Every structure is written in C-alpha cells, then in structure tokens.
C-alpha cells in the first residue's frame, strides 16, 4: 500500500486533498473481501481442467452459440436502453408535467421484482396469447420464445441503470450553457448534440456498460421468455446450469470465467474511454 502511494506521488506530485490512504485502504479491503477473494475461487476451480480441456469446453459449438445469443441480445438491449434512458432522464429533469413524480418513482421497480417473476410476467404479456403479444401476433410478429423476447427481458432489467446514471449528471448540468447556445441561435437539436450530449455521454456510457454486463449474465428472467432451443434461443448462463445439472463444476466455472473475462474487458474499455472523455471535458 505504502509503496503504491509513494509511487503515485512520485508520478503525479503531492496529493492536495487529504484522506487518500484511509479511503484507498478501505476501498481495497472491502473489494478484496467481498469480490476478489471469492472471484479467485472461480479461477481455482476452473483450473481443475487442463488447458486443452478448458479450450475444448469453452469453444464447444453449443456454448459458442450461447455466447453469441447472450452478447447480441444484451448489446441490442443496452442500445435500446441508452436511447430511451436519455429520453427518460431528459423528460424527468427538464420538463414539468402531471404524473412526473410517479413516472420518476417507477424506474427502480424492475429491480425489486425477483427476476423469475419478471420473466414469468413478461412471458405472459408478450406470448401470442398475452395482452401485448396478441397485438404483435396479429401483425405476424412473434415476441416471446424468440430473440426479441430475450431482448425485452434484458431491456426490462437494464433500464434503471441507464436512467439513473444520466439523471444526476443532467440535474447538475448548468443551464447557462444551454441558454447561451439558444441565445446564440443554435437550434434545439444542435444544442443537444453539441452542448448537452458531450456532457452526459460519459454517464450514458456507464449506463450502457452496466446494462450490457447485467444482460449478459442474466438468467432468471430470460430463461422463461427465451424458447431455449439450442443454437437459436439458448443463452450462455443456461448452459452453465446444464453443466451443473451434470455435476460438472469445473466445466461450469470454465464457461463462467470466459463470460466474466469478456464482460470485464467491456467494462474496462468503457471505463478507460469514460475517464479519457472526462479529462477532455474538464480541461
């Protein structure tokens, strides 16, 4: 710990704000206890496999198609959430209208509902016999038991992440910029694109990344609305469950490890981009 501080001091000069040691210490110890040590057991467990075995398991055809389904659907869902997330956060911060506070209050509800209940209810609504599914079935579009169904479940579980990441930033955003831009004759959309979007983009990216990561790992709600047909609608977490059902712990943790590394890389890239953008906007 001490070396780290010294090293960083050497590079960045003296720290002006006090309390670095204690806050860093607490952060690292909690992180290790709750996350890092347990995570290490995944790696230890997966290392029960030889390298060839590991590669064989994680590149098996069904498993690969599972990753594809999970990543593709989570990506689309996160994109949808980013779009609607910006609109929702914007509406909640900038406009006054009746029912605003109710709308605001509803955003977190998806979290409180156990994922399995969310899955069962969404399936009931979006199957071709359900209230919403019926309308689409009339147009020949099937939602439940297809990839579209998986995306809907992931949108449901991911929306709070994006809205709540953008909202506080928008709230803190100084309205002076906007007013200045409008006074200088910029159109609404131009103000948004040139002035507001760059400010909220890092937060949006955070929300996107979190929703994406959450979607990739999601099991409880997706498993009901996906048809679970191999190569079509079978998600990767379900394959982990299948391995466990055969009492193959090492195989299960192997697949989990691959998904984890992928998500970790996505989040890391997003964090690097975000911090770069913060530097640019802050200067």
């Amino acid at each position, binding site marked *: 710990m001490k070396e780290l501080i010294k090293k960083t001091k050497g590079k960045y000069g003296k720290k002006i704000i006090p309390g670095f040691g204690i806050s860093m210490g607490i952060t690292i110890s909690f992180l290790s206890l709750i996350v890092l040590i347990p995570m290490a057991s995944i790696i230890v467990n997966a290392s029960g496999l030889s390298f060839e075995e590991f590669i064989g398991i994680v590149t*098996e*055809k*069904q498993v690969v*198609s599972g990753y594809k389904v999970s990543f593709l659907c989570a990506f689309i869902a996160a994109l949808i959430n980013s779009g609607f997330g910006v609109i929702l956060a914007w509406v909640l911060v900038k406009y006054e209208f009746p029912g605003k506070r109710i709308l605001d209050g509803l955003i977190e509800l998806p979290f409180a509902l156990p994922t399995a209940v969310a899955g*069962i209810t969404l*399936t*009931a609504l979006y*199957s*071709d*016999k*359900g209230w919403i599914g019926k309308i689409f079935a009339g147009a020949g579009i099937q939602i*439940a*038991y297809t990839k579209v169904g998986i995306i809907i479940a992931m949108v449901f579980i991911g929306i709070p992440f994006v809205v709540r990441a953008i909202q506080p930033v928008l709230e803190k955003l100084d309205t002076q910029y906007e007013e200045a831009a409008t006074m200088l004759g910029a159109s609404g959309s131009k103000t948004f694109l040139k002035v507001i979007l760059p400010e909220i983009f890092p937060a949006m990216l955070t929300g996107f990344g979190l929703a994406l990561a959450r979607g990739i790992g999601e099991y409880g709600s997706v*498993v*009901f609305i996906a*048809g*679970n*047909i*191999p*190569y079509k609608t079978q998600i990767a977490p*379900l394959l982990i*469950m*299948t391995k*466990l*059902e*055969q*009492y193959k712990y090492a*195989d299960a943790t192997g697949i989990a490890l691959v998904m984890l590394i992928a998500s970790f890389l996505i989040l890391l890239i997003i964090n690097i981009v975000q911090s770069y953008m913060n530097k640019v906007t802050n200067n």
Partner: protein
Amino acid sequence: MNKRRLLSLGLTLVLSIGVLTGCGSKSEIIEITNVSYDPTREFYEAYNEEFKAYWKEKTDQEVTIVQSHGGSGKQARSVIEGNEADVVTLALAQDITAIEEAGLIEAGWIDEFEKNSSPYTSTIVFLVRSGNPKNIKDWDDLIKDGVEVITPNPKSSGGARWNFLAAWGFADELYGGAQDKITEFITKLYNNVIVLDSGARGSTTTFVENGQGDVLIAWENEAYLSLKEHPDEYEIITPSISILAEPSVAVVDEVTKKRDTAEVASGYISYLYSDAAQRLAGENYYRPSNEEILQEFSNVFDLNSRLITIDDFGGWEEASKEFFVDGALFDQIYSE
C-alpha cells in the same frame, strides 16, 4: 468520525446476529430436514403430520420436519455442497447416486428400502387441450407435422430425462430396436418442440398459462395438478408405452451420524411404505408402490399402459452416457 464508528458498529451487529441465528440452538425436540423436489410439497406436508403422530406414539419423541423443495438436481447439489439434509427424496436415482459419490451416502442405498427405495412412482403422460383437437393418442402422433410439443430440456432438468426415455422406449418397440429409425423418431419429436424450458414447472407454465403448444409431455402427478386447477380445460392421455418413473429416497448417512438422527431418519423413510402413507401418495397423484393399494386407485390411474423401466436402458449411468452427456445423442438432435 463518530458517525462512521456507529455505522461500523451497527454493521458488525447485524452480521453477528446473522451468524448467531445461523448457528441456532439445540432443543429437546428432534429436528430432521427432508430435502425433496418440487411437486411433492402437498404430499409431504400431509405425510409429516402423519409421521409425527406415529413417531410420538412409537417412541414418545417429538419430531419436527423442515422441508426444502426445488429442482431435483439442484437440491442434490445443495446437499453435496453442505445443505444438511437427514433424508433426501428426489426425482431420480441418479441424483442420489451423485450424493453417494460425494461421500455422504453409503453405497448400496438403493437396496436399503423396498422397491428400489421408491415408495411411490409415477409415469409420463400427455396433457392436451380440452376435446383433444389434434387427436393425440400415442407417441407417434407427436411427430406429425403441425403438432407443437412442450417438454423441458433433459439436460437441464433431471426429471425430464424420464420423458425422453419414455419416448425412446416407444420408438424402440415400434422399430424393433433399429437404432437409426429410433434416432430419426426422437429427432422429429424434438423438432416439434417449440419451447424447450429449463425445468418441468416452466414447461407447465408455458403450456397452461401462456397457451403454447398442443401437447405437454409431463409426469402423471404434475399433469393431475394442472388438471385439478383447470378441470375443464385439459385432458390427460396415457400413451400405450411409457416409463415407470421412480423417485428415490435415502437416508443421508454422514449428516444423520453427525446429528445423531439416524434412527428417526430411517423411521421416516420406512413409514413411507405404510398403508396410510401409501394411500396419501395415491391421493396426491403418485402411484403407490404397494400393488394392493395401487389397485384402490385404478379409477384414477390408467393401469393398462405398458411401463418400461430404467433397467431396460441398463441403468442411469448407461442411459446418461448414451443420451444426455455433452456431445451424446440429445446434443446431436440439434444442429446450427
């Protein structure tokens, strides 16, 4: 600073209360835990009352039974991972064998109690919509074009392996054991499956609540549960050939030794074979393994269909290797 200290104190308190309640206190009443699978709750709820009275009369001991229900494989895993069960009552012998292999149950458990340690059995039937619009009578109706089938994935649901094996048994008989014909039959059957849920309960919801498919392949007792809830909407069809699904029971030796509950645990399972418990099983749509009592329920169950058993497949180990492990026959049904 004070606030922070207060907060951490509070935290320690909350966590330690958790630890303490986790340890629990030993009382005079004997407590045993029965780790079971999903649809047995009503049966064991009634049986536990019956057993408590019987045990009190026999030994003058008070006993309470903690129940745990979940997917059979998941429940077996939890026992292996340290969930302290005195008895396990699961959907298939394979799950108990896994607990045996982990060293918790002594080998030879299957012969410890009568009838392969299966006090009650079931079989695989079809649930169709009222009036049977697609006229489904037997397994070969399920492979016809335009028939939509709902069944869980035998790889993620241990209980659903019985469904697969029952279908295989029929095709085996039909084609006189010609392997490629049987495989073709099974492939056609699973190509008609429109939703392959991860568990039996999920499949029932898909069929009953969400109105998908024309036929649900299900355990007989679960089909009756659906029928009980919606009496006018469904019919049960018993195919000409099915399989004798044998849910197995066992005493978990390691746990009962540690907790000194071997006697009551063994008594708990033995009493499942009593006439009273057998009737209770029948009332909950399980087939009593006692032949005489089974006949009392002949108006409920169709006792005419021929039932093959897991032994016809050379036991679970053989069946798993041939059909359900990764890359085995079931995986070959599906291609990209």
